[in-house]
């Protein structure tokens, strides 16, 4: 069970010159097995919120519970995928996929088997012996996903995982993320800067306010996950609704460009 419930979370960074209040009173309620997209202006604290849920950051106020347990450090079945994938350049594809299991001291035969299965699922079986620098951006992202799958993660926290990819690869991976979620029904939190991506992958879209960040509005998106959603009127309407919300917040540049 991986429901997420955060109350009045505040995080202050102690910077070199001054302190930065990154989050102030953020609340978050995610049901087990939900897929949530988080969107908001740059610097509003999205990454910070994710790190707090992952147990990698001490909160200065409030509390975070995952699966009913208070978070005090990294949790066994929470997987974090970062902007630049967080792969280790000195480990091969197989070693990267096995890393979580190795850190948790699973026996090597089990590691092999689970990593092989996960790599198969993301289509990287042929590339097990390569290093990340020998992979394309899309393949690296698949590898980061394989690592989470090998761990049998029930909570997947993703920080702009697809932002570095070109448009075609990006759609390809969005489809992979969607099909993984439809298969496994893990709890998924996706931070993104793309309105279309948020609507395509978020059953609920959370819009954050400018820093110090809070959850500003919650947009339900019941069409998410239906076949061919990307081409429907409902999809476009939802994107427009979200765009309006962000514009009202001043999160979009004049002219309605990217965040």
């Amino acid at each position, binding site marked *: 069970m991986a429901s997420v419930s955060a109350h009045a979370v505040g995080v202050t960074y102690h910077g070199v010159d001054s302190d930065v209040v990154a989050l102030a009173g953020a609340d978050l309620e995610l049901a087990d097995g939900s897929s949530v997209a988080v969107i908001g202006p740059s610097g509003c604290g999205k990454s910070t919120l994710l790190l707090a849920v992952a147990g990698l950051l001490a909160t200065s106020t409030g509390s975070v519970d995952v699966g009913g347990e208070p978070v005090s450090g990294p949790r*066994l079945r929470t997987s974090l995928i970062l902007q630049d994938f*967080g792969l280790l350049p*000195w480990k091969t594809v197989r070693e990267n996929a096995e890393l979580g299991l190795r850190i948790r001291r699973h026996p090597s035969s089990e590691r092999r088997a689970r990593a092989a299965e996960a790599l198969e699922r993301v289509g990287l079986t042929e590339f097990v012996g390569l*290093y990340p620098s020998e992979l394309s951006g899309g393949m690296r992202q698949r590898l980061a996903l394989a690592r989470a799958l090998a761990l049998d993660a029930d909570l997947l926290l993703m920080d702009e995982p697809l932002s570095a990819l070109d448009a075609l690869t990006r759609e390809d991976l969005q489809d992979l993320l969607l099909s993984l979620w439809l298969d496994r029904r893990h709890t998924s939190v996706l931070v993104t800067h793309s309105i279309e991506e948020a609507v395509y992958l978020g059953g609920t879209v959370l819009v954050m306010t400018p820093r110090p960040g809070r959850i500003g509005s919650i947009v339900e998106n019941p069409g998410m996950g239906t076949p061919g959603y990307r081409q429907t009127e409902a999809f476009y309407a939802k994107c427009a609704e979200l765009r309006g919300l962000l514009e009202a917040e001043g999160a979009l540049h004049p002219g309605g460009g990217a965040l």
Partner: protein
Amino acid sequence: MRTWLRRAIGYVGAIAVMLVVWEAASLLLHSPALPTPADALMQVVEQFPLLAPHFGYSALRVVVAMVIGLVVGAPLGLWLGRSKAADLVAGPLIFLNYPVPKAVFLPVLLVLLGIGNASIIALIALIVFFQILVTARDAARSIPAASVLSVRSLGANAWQVFTNVTVPGAMPEIFTALRIGAGTAVAVLFFSESIAGSTGLGYFVFDAWGRVRYGEMFAGILAMALLGVLLYEAIEFAESRLCRWERAGR
């Protein structure tokens, strides 16, 4: 083409160029202190039985000293690079001492440890230690936060972060320091052996110089050069084995 073959061809080419320049210089200077390559190589062959044990002493000293410098310097540097508290205490101490030329301490070491292996090894180890310490510390500091975060998110403890991220992340730079250190080490070896030894190539070269045996002297110089090249190649080989990912994706 295989890398080692390419390397071998590179070496052969470089040696050919060197021989030509050397031959020309020797003909131009026409001094007994710079024999022609052919004469010098003849000397190496002739002096081989005498030269070999000195080569052995020098090689042993420099290798032992570099291993000590590495084994002490690398872990300490990595630790200082990752631990703010440790760095706060030890950092100033190191940076006060780093710019001091260690070679001037040879007389002190000679008094403390006596003439011979111990002081020579100690001096070289000290120099290599500082070079590796400073490099390892900087390398550990510049390890990307994302690498550390992603491994920590997998539940890694401090030791696992160290072995999975810090050590491999800093390894290429430590190898670079080791390579630069090898050059310094051989130079210091020469210097200290010529002062504090009755064995070793440094002693051999200076002894021959004192006896105006320029042929022998040159044989010793060539042996010293060979020692440097072998050391460098050994480090290069170790790096290619331990840092395989560096050659990937180029």
